[in-house]
């Protein structure tokens, strides 16, 4: 049963499972929502590169989010969530509990812990980024030299004034704001155990050598099995765009009726380029690279934010023990996943397939045995 287990749930290397010999390191995203400015460059760059059609022209009235959700014509979606102080406090508290519980902590309240943060506890003292912290900051491609890099304020600062300043910074860092505006760019999770791929009857969905999940539009027959199979509601069949009144436009669009979703820019990856969204992101909120590194960066960034008092920060996705065997897209969120429209405890719909088969087999066996007994009984 171990083969089944690996391919349908639990930790594994999906590219190898799919039969790739000696695949490159698994690729993925780290989306750091704490530095996202909501410019939506990712949405536009994605549509440009992948030549996706317009989706709909209606104003939703839902903050600055007129995209609403991921779908067949929208592969990156930026969510905007406006929150008051009370909600921020709750988020901070739930994040703190999450960090304290660690991997072993049971989900007494709220969602299960997605990943081990390994935080000893909230560290007092260090409140400005030190040289070491800078070196561990996300690889932004920005020069980390020049004045200001070497900040001599920290626990080792001897200057009394500097220490005072650090204390003052501590007093304001993490101060509860009256209001905040969460902004987060969502994308396909490229699950380790991808329900969409498992249920595809045509082979249109396949696992690439980078461990990502891609649909081949010219193979897909539009059966739609994959749509309910996705625990995140990512994949959909393409429909025509709607106008401001919700009416469908008359003009046909490319790949109409065919299931579509983010390919993690498979075509760009093959030539060693970054996905279009990561390339376009001006603040490095969207980072791309080896998945193991993405996961590590996410954990380090969460730790840095917790140190500054922002205990609402948490990692979403990437935990190999979660219901999809870990996602290929890792996020840093500043509240519980539901707030962003993400499932708190995603579970691949095919996870129980072996069990179902086993039980079905057992049932069938029982039936046969029962029938045999019945016959035998009848004979006797």
């Amino acid at each position, binding site marked *: 049963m171990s083969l089944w287990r690996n391919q349908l749930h639990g930790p594994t290397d999906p590219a190898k499972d799919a039969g790739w010999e000696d695949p490159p390191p698994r690729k993925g995203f780290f989306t750091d929502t704490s530095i996202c400015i909501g410019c*939506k460059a990712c949405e536009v760059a994605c549509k440009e590169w992948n030549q996706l059609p317009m989706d709909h022209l209606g104003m939703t009235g839902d903050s600055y989010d007129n995209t609403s959700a991921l779908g067949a014509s929208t592969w990156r979606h930026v969510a905007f969530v406006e929150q008051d102080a009370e909600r921020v406090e709750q988020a901070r508290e739930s994040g703190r509990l999450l960090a304290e519980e660690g991997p072993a902590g049971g989900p007494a309240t709220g969602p299960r812990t997605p990943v081990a943060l390994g935080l000893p506890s909230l560290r007092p003292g260090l409140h400005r980024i030190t040289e070491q912290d800078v070196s561990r900051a996300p690889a932004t491609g920005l020069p980390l030299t020049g004045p200001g890099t070497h900040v001599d304020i920290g626990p080792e600062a001897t200057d009394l004034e500097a220490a005072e300043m650090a204390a003052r910074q501590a007093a304001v860092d993490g101060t509860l704001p009256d209001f905040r505006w969460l902004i987060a760019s969502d994308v396909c999770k490229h699950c380790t155990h991808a329900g969409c791929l498992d249920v595809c009857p045509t082979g249109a969905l396949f696992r690439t050598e980078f461990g990502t999940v891609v649909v081949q539009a010219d193979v897909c027959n539009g059966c739609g099995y994959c749509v309910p199979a996705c625990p995140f509601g990512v994949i959909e069949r393409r429909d025509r765009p709607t106008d401001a009144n919700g009416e469908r436009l008359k003009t046909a669009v490319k790949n109409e009726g065919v299931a579509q979703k983010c390919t993690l820019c498979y075509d760009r990856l093959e030539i060693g380029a970054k996905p279009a969204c990561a390339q376009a992101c001006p603040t490095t909120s969207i980072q791309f690279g080896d998945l193991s590194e993405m996961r590590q960066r996410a954990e380090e960034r969460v730790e840095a934010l917790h140190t500054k008092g922002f205990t609402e920060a948490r990692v979403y996705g990437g935990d190999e023990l979660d219901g999809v065997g870990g996602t290929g897209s890792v996020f840093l969120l500043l509240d519980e996943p539901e707030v962003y429209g993400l499932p708190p405890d995603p579970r691949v719909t095919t996870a129980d397939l072996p069990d179902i088969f086993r039980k079905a087999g057992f049932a069938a066996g029982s039936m046969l045995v029962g029938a045999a007994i019945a016959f035998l009984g009848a004979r006797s």
Partner: protein
Amino acid sequence: MPGLGASFGRGGATQFVQDMANADCIIIQGSNMAECHPVAYQWVTEAKLRGARVLHIDPRFTRTSATADRHVPLRVGSDVIFLGAIINYVLTHELYFAEYVRAFTNGPTLINEDYADTEDLDGLFSGYDPERGAYDLKSWAYATADDGDGDGDTDGKVGEAGAEEHGVEKREAAAGDQHGSGGPALEHARVLRDDTMTDPRCVLQILRRHYSRYTPEMVEQACGVSAEDFAYVVDSLVTNSGRDRTTCFAYAVGWTQHTLGAQFIRTASILQLLMGNIGRPGGGIMALRGHASIQGSTDIPTLFNLLPGYLPMPYAGRHDTFEHYLTSIASKQQKGFWVNADAYAINLLKAWWGDAATADNSWAFDYLPRINGSHNTYATVMGMLEDTVEGYFLLGQNPAVGSSNGRMQRMGMAHLKWLVVRDLQLIESATFWKDGPEIATGELRTEDIGTEVFFLPAASYAEKEGTFTQTQRLLQWRHKAVAPPGQSRSELHFFHELGKKIRARLADSTDPRDRPLLDLTWDYPEDEHGDPDAHAVLQEINGRYLTGDKAGELLPAFVEMKADGSTSGGCWIYTGVYAGGVNRAASRKPDAEQSWVSPEWGWAWPANRRILYNRASADPEGRPWSERKAYVWWDADKASWVGHDVPDFPVTKDPAYRPEPGTGGVAGLAGDDPFIMQADGKGWLFAPKGMVDGPLPTHYEPQESPVVNPLYGQQANPARMVYKRKDNLSAPSGTRPGADVYPYVATTYRLTEHHTAGGMSRWLPYLAELQPAFFCEVSPELAAERGLENGGWATIISPRAAVEARVLVTERMTPMTISGRQLHQIGLPYHWGVGGSDAVVSGDSANDLLGVTLDPNVAIQESKASSCDIRAGRRPTGEALLRLINEYQSRAGLTVETGNTLLTGGDEADR
């Protein structure tokens, strides 16, 4: 940008965007940087990751606020009170950088005894002329030692370098724009100083008194900012300024688009000088320009009042000879590089008219057109309505949507004989004659409009070659990726062709008035498509030697420009961009392969300096203020200024050097005069010249404001430019009758998803779908007060127009408590328009609501603050719309005089 020009000597951002990453604190005010400059914002993000504190001070909670450490909501238009209170606080508590102020600013300089402050005159400075509604600037001058007794009696010469001293003349020429690359002229640099800065007539003491009533309590009452928030901002600035640390300010059109916009910028300039944050890494004032090449369009201007390199446009009757003209720019006795204005002007004239420009004809100075008034964009439209302007070129501009008082714009264009629109799309300004709002109301009928409209498709940025000069004065070469489709052509092609055709038409003319056109050097090489060679144009701008051994070679730097006709150059501040025959604007060395200042990425004017006034990054003796903030310093062994950047100072001038009193020009600069374009080499806390509406920023209410000026009897800027017209009515302010008819404050702005008037975004499906509809942002409190529903419709009515918008109810809009009264602000993005062909999305234009009342320094409209009413539901259409607007106007009792009384001091009823 006279706010920066008058303060520091050059009207451009004082540093480069990447340097923001070196700041310990970033204060963003008057800018929504994350939304409007998202790419540059990466350096703010970087600074934050390094541990800097980021503050956003703005009426609205925007995407910038979302990532800032704190958002401080502020009442629209109250910025001078807020910043003035910080100035007062740091002066009172002695928290300013005294050593820097004493050495590098005019803080110790004495002002003459005729000067009277707004504290003495209830909101006016000395020299106000009520007849002309403008200031005589004489009484703001420095005291001078010339009369020998040192008692400060002026000798009648100070401040008279220019022929035009009266503010009204400066205003007509929007003279403030001239300080883009050099501070205002002084007769000489012999000034009186008190280095103890205790003399009551010294600038620092005048500053103390001027802002003495700008207190945290006043901030709370008039700006709506809590004492706690104010303390946080002061604390952030003070703890992050000084020898070891620097704070940077960033602003954009949230400061400029006010009737005292230039003074908002001056207030920040004063503060940054006091804190010692100018000329140093991680400091400065980042002036974020509105478009890709707006800095370029003032360097090589599209403005009526400027010639390339910030040389003024000659004014009829005042600059009738070349000598008069040169004298008005700079005195030979003042300090610094601006004394060589003769060379800069002659080189420009040689570039334009070549051999036809000779010493005998004053280098063809008389070929230059003259101005005779304020021909700003709004005056031009009024000229159309009076039929004095017959033709109009629109290049990448959509005034039917993008300019204040859109109705006046469209009505004006309907008076034209011809209109040329060069754009990517058939924008509203090209189709107003058949589908504009006035057609719908019946005010205009297509068959009555005689305007002949020519639409010429334009090449986009990817389809043509040339340079952009961006926000930090950086020239970047833009390569042509593809040929433009169909008949689309570049601007270069269009103007070159137009010039060739006109010259061909005039070829046989003997009329002397055609000589300027016929003598023009107009011989750029063309490629196979007829496109002129953009490199040849940039080389002409850079300049060449005309005679001698090096004849034909490109000039390496503007100091090589001679005033004898032996060199030519089309824009002195750009000289060096093609030094050595290399197009330095096209330099693209990756940052990893060069120093963090990245001098080989593009080319910045002047002389590729990235941080201006960087002499100030070292102390008076030339040593870095601190190891951490070392940038440019004096190397005694090499007897030279060295460091990370090109020194913005004569490279071999010893810090200890002191000129003979009275020495002018570059030799007159002392070793501790870091502001080399200023007439006295110092940063100006007090601007004795250069600003037409006051030497020190003073709080005035906007043209339309529900608030009574809490500080002075003078309600609004007494020198603002008002236009008393029936098509440009204003709402009453304060407690005046009728003010309650328009009880709310509207402020306009842009969104990341769209580009200005929408010509580059509303026609693109990917952008249009992201923000498909014109909306207004209101607080839940205002929504409850007026029955507005999220996602529903609202009608917004101003004294000029009524528009409809979808409603976005959001806590990001905060009702302000001003002097105990609740005040609501309404946010209006202005990207949509009515009409235009085939736009993916359209809608009413917020700019239709705005009036035309201008800042006197730069003739910029007050689009950030206006009065309005809001009600639930869609607006009426057709004639009923006009009736609604009229009904409001008559209820408020509006006349052309309403709100337009310039002088209101002492008369309570007039406020």
